[in-house]
């Protein structure tokens, strides 16, 4: 997806209120309350042979590790394994473990960290301003003929004299 494209794949406002409070796993107390146990859980899960094989295969396809790490921790939150803050703190551990597996297997992987360096803030700002100016120019082009036409229509409209008992006198 391009950075300037708007994503519509989002929850509908109020979607979280469609179930009773406590019906969802993330509304229950977390299974793993602290970061020590959460790190152990993720390291064990990632080091699993089947998972590691799939992970190496995914790395080869060029999926950034940041995306995989984010998905993993988000799944943990959804399943009620841990809270959101523990999940966020787990990202470096998950990423480092995945890099360890990638290096051990000799796979060239994309960490997903280079994007931030390459994507300079000035570039984004310039692009945004450019787009705004372009859209403004387009709007002007669209508006001008309409205005002319409306003026023309007003001029061409025949003057209808009010007739009848209830008509307002001028």
């Amino acid at each position: 997806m391009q950075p300037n494209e708007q994503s519509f794949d989002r929850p509908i406002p109020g979607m979280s209120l469609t179930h009773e409070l406590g019906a969802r796993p993330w509304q229950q107390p977390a299974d793993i309350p602290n970061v020590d146990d959460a790190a152990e859980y993720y390291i064990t899960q990632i080091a699993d042979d089947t998972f590691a094989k799939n992970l190496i295969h995914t790395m080869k396809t060029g999926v950034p590790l940041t995306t995989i790490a984010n998905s993993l921790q988000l799944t943990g939150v959804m399943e009620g394994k841990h809270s959101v803050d523990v999940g966020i703190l787990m990202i470096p551990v998950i990423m480092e473990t995945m890099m360890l597996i990638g290096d051990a297997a000799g796979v060239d992987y994309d960490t997903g960290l280079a994007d931030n360096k390459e994507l300079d803030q000035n570039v984004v700002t310039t692009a945004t301003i450019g787009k705004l100016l372009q859209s403004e120019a387009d709007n002007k082009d669209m508006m001008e003929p309409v205005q002319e036409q409306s003026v023309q229509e007003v001029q061409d409209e025949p003057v209808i004299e009010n007739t009848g008992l209830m008509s307002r006198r001028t």
Partner: protein
Amino acid sequence: MITNPAAKIYSSIDALPEIKSRKEKTSSTSGMMSPLLKKSNMSSNKNNIEKEPAFIVAKIQQRIKKDRQEIKDMRNAT
């Protein structure tokens, strides 16, 4: 604004200086006054920092990174 929280949190934790394991200091003082002469406040502050989740995560991340570097060096050597 385009943000990548995973990259940001990784970069932040990765940028932290190396956490060295603290040596357990044995109390040199002895006698009746020794409990009063201990620098209990300083050590308790350090212990508090070490219990912080971010600190624990940084420690784990650095340990895994060290192992990763060793594996990389071994692969480069062969």
